[in-house]
């Protein structure tokens, strides 16, 4: 299945792009996608835990199972205001 992964702010700069399509095995969880990113780029492996994540613009727990066509974002620390 495919999901769309969006990158923002410091994560966008580390990834070198603002979005990408990802081919994942059925049943892949949010936290497993995060660990896959860490294996590809040392920047994403530095974090002690999975950062806040959103699927289809809603905050989700890292154990949530991804579905075909999901829009996934890992959020750097937010700093609005």
């Amino acid at each position: 299945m495919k999901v769309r992964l969006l990158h923002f702010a410091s994560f966008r700069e580390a990834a070198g792009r603002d979005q990408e399509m990802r081919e994942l095995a059925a049943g892949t969880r949010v936290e497993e996608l995060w660990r896959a990113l860490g294996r590809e780029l040392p920047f994403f492996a530095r974090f002690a835990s999975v950062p806040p994540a959103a699927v289809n613009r809603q905050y989700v727990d890292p154990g949530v199972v991804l579905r075909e066509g999901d829009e996934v974002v890992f959020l750097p620390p937010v700093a609005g205001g």
Partner: protein
Amino acid sequence: MYLTSSPIDLASLLLEARPSDGALCLFVGVVRGQNEGRETTAIQYEAYGEMAEEEIGRIARDLAREFPAVRIRMVHRVGSLSVGEASVAIAAVSPHRAEAFAACRAAIDRLKTTVPIWKKELHPDGSSEWVDPTRTAGGRR
């Protein structure tokens, strides 16, 4: 729409008051010229636009339930801002001031906590950094 790439029109927020209102509490966040002891020349705000709109909308609905006498408008700027420009504005209007102050305070505190907006500080020497309120005193209220 809660996000704007144009300068925030503060005067338009003042038009929110109706005859039954006796208080309008306006909070305006402005770009500070220094942070953590370093000089800032500009700030770039970046948002996950669709989610930020939904998240601010959720905050607005929660506040409407918690403060039924108060009407709240929130606007957040995105893009590149100079020192002294308004980055966020919140207007809380109600018959009396106590609930207007309380709702305005709650609105900005929540907006800073959950809305997917990020800011990058630019320094005079050309360097820059993403602000992380969880790591620095920049998250103080």
